[in-house]
């Protein structure tokens, strides 16, 4: 994973709460077996509407999505994060993220910045007044700047550290191999095993 410190790019206002993963990427696109090439799938249903925000030329190359609360609810599909990244988004701002989406973002280096709802609304206003305004999301200082709006965002220390360092969870865990083996030795014998198969 590429380390992230700070990102600056055009902010895209998505003034809607409860943007679920079926909207971010409909299930028909989940048949692919690759991890990339999902840019066409992002918000594919909404993008058919010419008025949708991403169809406005000024936002076409946006890279910071500013959404309503409860972004990423629903399915566990990591494809939602892949699609956002493939399209060009590097950060998503919302006052609240669904747990699984939030975790998936951290695994893929998509910065999910939790910003208080009143500040999200100030950013929306700024973007409405000056479409095309760039937003800077600074992970080192946990700040978001957009025009006259200068605020902070919430992120836990561990996720921030992993993103700053670009660390891969599996390598980190494999360092704990001896602890995993010691734990396995204590597992009760009645716990089920899938093999050999019994039917």
């Amino acid at each position, binding site marked *: 994973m590429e380390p992230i410190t700070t990102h600056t790019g055009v902010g895209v206002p998505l*003034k*809607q*709460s*409860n943007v*679920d993963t*079926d*909207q971010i990427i*409909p*299930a*028909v696109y*989940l*048949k*692919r*077996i*690759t*991890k990339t090439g999902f840019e066409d799938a992002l918000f594919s*249903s909404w993008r058919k509407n010419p008025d949708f925000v991403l169809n406005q030329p000024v936002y076409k190359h946006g890279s910071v999505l500013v959404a*309503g*609360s*409860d972004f990423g*609810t*629903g*399915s*566990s*599909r*990591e494809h939602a*994060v892949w699609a956002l990244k493939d399209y060009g988004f590097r950060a998503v701002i919302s006052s*609240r993220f*669904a*747990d*699984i989406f939030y*975790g*998936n973002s951290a*695994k*893929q280096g998509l910065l999910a910045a939790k910003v208080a709802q009143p500040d999200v609304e100030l950013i929306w206003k700024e973007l409405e007044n000056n479409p095309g305004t760039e937003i800077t999301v600074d992970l080192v200082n946990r700040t978001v700047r957009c025009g006259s709006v200068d605020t902070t965002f919430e992120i*836990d*220390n*561990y996720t921030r550290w992993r993103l700053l360092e670009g660390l891969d*969870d*599996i390598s*980190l*865990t*494999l360092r*704990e191999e001896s*602890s*995993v083996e010691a*734990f*396995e030795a204590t*597992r*009760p*014998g*009645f*716990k*089920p*095993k*899938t*093999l050999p*198969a*019994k*039917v």
Partner: protein
Amino acid sequence: MANTPLTLPEKVWRDHVVVPGKESDGQRSPDLLYIDLHLVHEVTSPQAFEGLRLAGRPVRRPDLTIATEDHNTPTLEIDKPIADPISRKQVDTLRANAEEFGVRIHSLGDADQGIVHVVGPQLGLTQPGMTVVCGDSHTSTHGAFGALAMGIGTSEVEHVLATQTLPLKPFKTMAITVNGSLRPGVSSKDIILAVIAEIGTGGGQGYVLEYRGSAIEELSMDARMTICNMSIEAGARAGMIAPDATTYEFIKGRPHAPQGEDWDAAIEYWDSLRTDDGAVFDAEVILDADTLDPFVTWGTNPGQGVSLNGAVPAPTDFTDDVARESAERALTYMDLQPGTRMKDIRVDTVFLGSCTNSRMEDLRAAAEIIAGRDKDPDVRMIVVPGSAKVRLQAEAEGLDKIFKEFGAEWRFAGCSMCLGMNPDQLAPGERCASTSNRNFEGRQGKGGRTHLVSPVVAAATAIRGTLSAPADILVPA
């Protein structure tokens, strides 16, 4: 402190910590938890197996891993090759990965194939006190057994395949206490729809829910699974119910249930998992089952629900700006007018299936209502059993005949129209009463309109053609 009273979720968590998180700056890094069971399906696993292959890593514990095909499989003509080449390739990829990495798989046509969350409990692999994960948000289903079960993303699928562990931040706990008893015609689906309407789609974020109280204790395992299944629709990654005699009765004798001395040891452990007296939850919600009506959604998220005896709300009913805008948008999408009685809403399709409501009890309850009655001729009804075994059992009981005589389509097992990945989809504008779990825009097919309902409401609706309660049918003409 050893004697601090603990909740069920906290006990299961405690018993799976491999490496505890470390404190720094007043924050704690995640605990590394051991995973007892990893369920795998074709949609969220190909990129995870590819990751293993690229890194040269094996599956650490194939004996704690099991795969089946469900999301992307057809429910008709399953003996023929899958018609859509992209779907076929994804299913073939799972089969090849299972073979390469030594993972047990139940493929289309196998008696143990089916929706992953129906298959695990059916085989007796889901047991109390376990940690269960799957690359599917409805993994919360398995919490009905007192397991800590949650959906994970594909990176986490790869992590569990490689290490059999997962770094997780501890959750807060929320008690959902449902007192009293359900009235006839009201089911566990109505409880969970009412809970989500109460706390909202984000209300459970960061929590594990524990459902408790007399109405929960009275439920069968099938009904408990329906409730835990939809915990994620309230934003909670996991929902749990304390194991009891009903749980043990369900597990006993299943293929992977403990036997002999193991059974006794298991029961002793399982009994110890119940929430201690005096344990404190971080939050509590209380619901009264005695006064609960059948519930149905009117909008485009599972929190937008009302009593079936109620009416479509007006956006102005909501004081919160966000909720009002969300309601406006939902009513436009759903093509509904405020004030319309829910029971006046006509549907085109009834879908009985999904990991929420496709088990034997669901099929029996629906069959009992439609038996000897006629389907509204303008309504199509699709019945998709949760697993091949459920289908076989239903056929042994003659339920398939009841559905077919009624005019419903009797399909093979899979996720089907719940998410419309396979050919089972709604057409634009088509309105559906669905026993599934998500009424999102386009979820069941582009432009499709979904009302979430219980199996008995689905059955009654198929008879009358408008959203209906079982009581509307049973009243003598």
